[in-house]
């Protein structure tokens, strides 16, 4: 933290976390305060570090796939999709159309589930307890589909390199449509609770402003970048898994404050439902796996593949030396990079706003620390 922000006589150092309910896991923030005003925030992270990248170098390509679910555990399906796409890129293979459509359905369902968790916890941090119970009810519908499909609710390991782990079950389409019909009106219901609520608006407007130039400087992506007015989404910019076939909008904000980010994420859930409805209507018949060797040994080379995860750009950089294990496996986690902007966003804010800003970052510490 630069020294010039300190006002030595009144400065107070306040430790927040790692065991603090509003830090969404084990995040420790050391705040420098001048009364109620924040002068700077220093993040202490690593409490959940498990060495995922080292584990990746010591497992075969297939063995590593379940580990990626444990990074961003609120969006395990997205993590798995990114990893499978990266290895497929190295193999120069592509999943068959049926697998791609099912991947889109499950990934978008997961995006809705991830955003629901964000909404519930963010509102809880700010003092609105009710939405948490509602979002859990809606998320349940989605997790039930995951459970029926692959047996797991949270760490799904739904995809395999080259396609899908399992064939879909009878009635998946009906379940997905029912879940969409259930969730969509509920999003309006949350908005009725929150969007016009004076306390909600007062607590979020002009809090934690991060404009487009700053977002790009810090590498901040995802809903945070879009709330600052940049219409950029990797699903549109570099479509993968057949996203180019579906109609959807990229919601953007104008101010880049916490309220805009709230609106962007709410609209993203609606757009995800829109994608799911299109994708589930036209899941083609056919195989669910591409022709992939039993022992995956990609040719010597390297590739960087990224997808639009619920939190931002999730990238995998894999170096292959031609053996059955990656020589180097780097994960570019959106939560880690986005968290870096916390210092700038909290400068000049009040202590109570720090809680709102951590909530709006939508971080998952499992992914920050890996």
């Amino acid at each position, binding site marked *: 933290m630069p020294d010039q922000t300190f006002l030595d006589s009144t400065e107070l150092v306040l430790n927040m976390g790692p065991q603090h309910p509003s830090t969404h896991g084990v995040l420790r923030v050391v705040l420098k305060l001048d009364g109620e005003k924040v002068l700077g925030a220093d993040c202490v992270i690593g409490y959940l570090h498990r060495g995922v990248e*080292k584990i990746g170098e010591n497992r075969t390509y297939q063995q590593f796939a379940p580990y990626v679910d444990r990074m961003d555990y609120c969006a395990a399906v997205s993590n798995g999709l990114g990893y499978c796409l990266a290895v497929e890129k190295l193999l120069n293979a592509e999943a068959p159309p049926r697998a791609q459509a099912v991947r889109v359905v499950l990934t978008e369902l997961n995006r809705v589930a991830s955003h629901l968790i964000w909404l519930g916890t963010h509102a809880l941090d700010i003092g609105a307890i009710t939405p948490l119970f509602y979002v859990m009810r809606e998320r349940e519908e989605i997790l039930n589909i995951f459970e029926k499909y692959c047996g797991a609710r949270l760490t799904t390991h739904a995809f395999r390199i080259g396609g899908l782990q399992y064939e879909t079950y009878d009635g998946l389409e009906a379940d997905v449509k029912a879940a969409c019909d259930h969730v969509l009106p509920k999003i309006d219901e949350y908005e009725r609770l929150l969007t016009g609520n004076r306390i909600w608006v007062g607590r979020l407007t002009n809090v934690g402003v991060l404009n487009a130039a700053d977002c790009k400087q810090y*590498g*901040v992506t995802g809903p945070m970048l879009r709330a600052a007015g940049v219409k950029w989404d990797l699903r549109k910019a570099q479509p993968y898994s057949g996203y180019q076939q579906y109609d959807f909008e990229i919601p953007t904000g104008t101010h880049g404050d916490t309220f805009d980010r709230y609106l962007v994420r709410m609209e993203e859930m609606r757009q995800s439902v829109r994608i799911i409805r299109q994708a589930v209507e036209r899941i083609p018949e056919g195989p669910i796996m591409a022709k992939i*060797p039993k022992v995956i040994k990609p040719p*010597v080379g390297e590739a*960087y593949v990224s997808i639009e995860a619920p939190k931002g750009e999730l990238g995998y950089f894999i170096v292959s030396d031609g053996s059955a294990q990656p020589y180097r496996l780097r994960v*570019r986690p959106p939560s880690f990079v986005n968290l870096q902007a916390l210092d700038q966003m909290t400068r000049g804010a009040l202590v109570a706003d720090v809680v709102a800003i951590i909530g709006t970052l939508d971080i998952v510490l499992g992914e920050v620390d890996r």
Partner: protein
Amino acid sequence: MPEDDKPEVKPGQAAPPAAAKPPAAKPAPKPPAVMAVSPWEGELPALLKQRFGDQVPEFSTYLGQNFLVAKPEAIVPILELLRFEADFEYLVDVTAVDYPQRAERFDLVYVLYSFGRNQHIRVKTQIADGYKPATATRVHRGANWLEREVFDMFGIEFAGHPDMRRILLPEDWEGYPLRKDKSILACDNKWIEEHLGIEGGQ
């Protein structure tokens, strides 16, 4: 699964001569394979060639992804040029790859993205152990934590970095876990005994 006796052979990958079954170590590996790259041509390589000449010896494409290899001291000027003149304003990632048998031990990899061109590129360099590359934080503020993570995991110190501390591991931890000579089971037993009061090691 290794019993599969008709592995699909991909073009570009030589078929293993015989299905020899020693599980772990292959006694006589194939001649060292290299990345089958093709040259990367266009206005961007031309611009960089004109500005930096032989400081950027390689422009390549692999699997449709462009990358360049530059001399370590040219990295920050290249990032600067790419950001201010070629629209690569978003530093996606900084990472390293360890090749302990090489004299210039580490590959340092910068992934950049341009919103205008909708393109990712990689800027790579090779550095020896102990070499201190210049920090990119003056060009991209976001490089701060990414470089700290490279330092934490590989022990590559960035010269001029405003806050060169470990980020994920404790500050007094010994060793750099992502170096290839660190086994996956290796950890700082002394630190664990001292701070956690339990026996270290697995």
